[in-house]
């Protein structure tokens, strides 16, 4: 699968990329929301793995922009974030509904194995 990995930390991004490549996926890394939209246009990802805490434009802003294009309205998005899911409990309907987040993973508790399983199942 073609994965678009949006992760602001360079070290984590390269670790996640290696794990996903070992699992047989093609991975494009982006650190910010604007670059991610351009990369999505170039690579047409099958799955997006997204951190919500990004400098400048946030992950939520990325999701609004990403979902505004009909080509990407059905692309599964897995949120993997430093923000605990509980903080988004009130807005989970928005995230899972209009913004199409298929799964929410809390980064500190998500192993590489768990991430690759989620990507494979997406």
């Amino acid at each position: 699968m073609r994965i678009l990995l949006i992760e602001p930390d360079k070290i984590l991004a390269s670790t996640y990329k290696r794990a996903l490549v070992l699992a047989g996926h093609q991975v494009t890394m982006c650190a910010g929301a604007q670059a991610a939209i351009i990369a999505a246009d170039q690579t047409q990802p099958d799955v997006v793995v997204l951190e919500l805490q990004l400098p400048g434009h946030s992950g939520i802003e990325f999701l609004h922009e990403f979902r505004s294009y009909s080509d990407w309205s059905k692309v599964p998005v897995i949120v993997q974030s430093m923000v605990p899911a509980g903080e988004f409990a009130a807005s989970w309907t928005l995230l899972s509904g209009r913004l199409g987040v298929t799964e929410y993973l809390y980064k500190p508790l998500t192993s590489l194995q768990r991430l690759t399983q989620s990507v494979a199942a997406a």
Partner: protein
Amino acid sequence: MAIHGNRQGAMSQQLLLALAEQLKLPLLQIARQAELGQPSDLPAVRTTAESALKLIDSYLLGVRLSTEGQTALALEPVSVSSVLYDVATDLTAAAQFYGVQLDLKVAGRYGPVLANRQALKSALTSLGMALIESLPALDAKRLSLDLAAHKCRYGIVAGIYSDSVKMRSVPLADGRRLMGQSRQPLHDISGQSAAGIFVADQLFSAMQLKLQSSKFQNLHGLAAVLPVSPQLSLI
């Protein structure tokens, strides 16, 4: 006096919260790299651990200077350019790791300033490390930071500059208010809690200096003005 003490206590608690949030990242980096189990990752793990420990050390120094006040703050004549050189040396490994080019720019020969060398070095190192970690996420065309010293009307300005980090005084003031309460108090420059910047802020405050936005050679940055003492220039 009690109000001042309460405010200081609250600030210190907010800084501790920001630090705790920031420290999740290096622990996570190490945990995930350990999961992959590649021996080639060991230097990266070491650099990550050293940077985290330096941040904690700087925080502790800031707390000590803030609580013990002037008795702990042993001021001495300090050469700003030599401090910047030491900071650049300390940051080199991390900068290479993050693909950031570090340049040292000292515009002229300056006399010594009255400061605490260890606190000044720790403040600039924390600031530099925070910016090194943030820079790759800013979609910048060129990843470079300048450690610079230059003269202004009030003294010698020492700080860290970039053409990507457009730090202005209003977001910095907002960030100080949001520290420890927001996940991204300086959201334009960091996806994290930016604890390194606030630890630097604390250290500069303990030295009666102020971290502020600054411009140098068309670059934006964060810096402090170190007053020059006429007596010291005789040394």
